């Protein structure tokens, strides 16, 4: 019986699940978490350079904010819950970095040329793993810009607002980040099927 009711919930769309969750329905919340959580966790971990523990904290905080907002969620006007979650989580992740004292200027190029172990990790992975490893090897600010632009699909002005920098800086960071990614992946181009 429990299984059947759970299957019923799986048929509901995200808005309906959120409405139920906001009313305290733990099963609906569980289905929504299982539906949206794994992709969100992967995305936040990528933004944070693979810091899994911090990524989990961010994902938790984003969902708790979603529950609080769910009570008066405007299904017709607001973004889809998944889209909203990704944006909030990205902002939370960047806020944490700023609060932790990360200085974008220092982080930008300090490790640009010595990414320790990056090539070794590239040798061990397949195509996706290699790309994740290369992203993790980027200087933080470049990684954030490339992930937000090319993975998450935000527009440059949105990224500029999220990173609290100018649009030109975003363009420069994504451009440099892409060049560096290509350089990191270059030696394995044929092996990874880019040839």
């Amino acid at each position: 019986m429990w299984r059947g009711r759970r299957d019923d919930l799986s048929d509901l769309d995200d808005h309906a699940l959120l409405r139920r969750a906001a009313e305290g329905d733990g099963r609906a919340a569980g289905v929504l978490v299982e539906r949206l959580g794994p992709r969100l966790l992967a995305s936040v971990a990528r933004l944070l350079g693979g810091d899994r523990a911090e990524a989990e904290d961010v994902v938790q905080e984003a969902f708790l904010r979603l529950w609080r907002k769910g009570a008066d969620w405007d299904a017709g006007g607001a973004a889809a819950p998944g889209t909203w979650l990704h944006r909030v989580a990205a902002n939370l992740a960047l806020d944490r970095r700023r609060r932790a004292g990360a200085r974008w200027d220092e982080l930008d190029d300090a490790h640009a040329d010595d990414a320790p172990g990056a090539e070794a990790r590239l040798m061990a992975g397949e195509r996706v793993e290699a790309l994740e490893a290369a992203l993790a090897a980027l200087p933080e600010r470049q990684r954030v810009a490339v992930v937000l632009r090319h993975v998450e699909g935000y527009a440059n002005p949105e990224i500029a607002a999220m990173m609290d920098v100018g649009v030109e800086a975003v363009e420069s960071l994504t451009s440099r980040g892409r060049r560096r990614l290509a350089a990191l992946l270059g030696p394995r181009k044929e092996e990874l099927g880019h040839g």
Partner: protein
Amino acid sequence: MDDLDRDLRALSRAEAPLPPHLRGRIVGGLPRPRPLPRLAWVGLPAALAAGLAIGMLDPVAVIAPLSGGEAEFADLAVLSWEDLE
């Protein structure tokens, strides 16, 4: 769009399984519906009974506010028990 762009975009579909403890913390953070205050369990039936009593004693006082404009109110105000019957 080159291979790198395609691969980067494909990463957006990558998933990381949620550990059970994280799932538990997220679902455990659901807002709990506030229980009805104990006084309300007495107050609600009392208010209902009072409303019924007023309706029985003075139906016009109940019907008039539910009707539309002033003219209807004036019509109702002159109604007697006999009219209603």
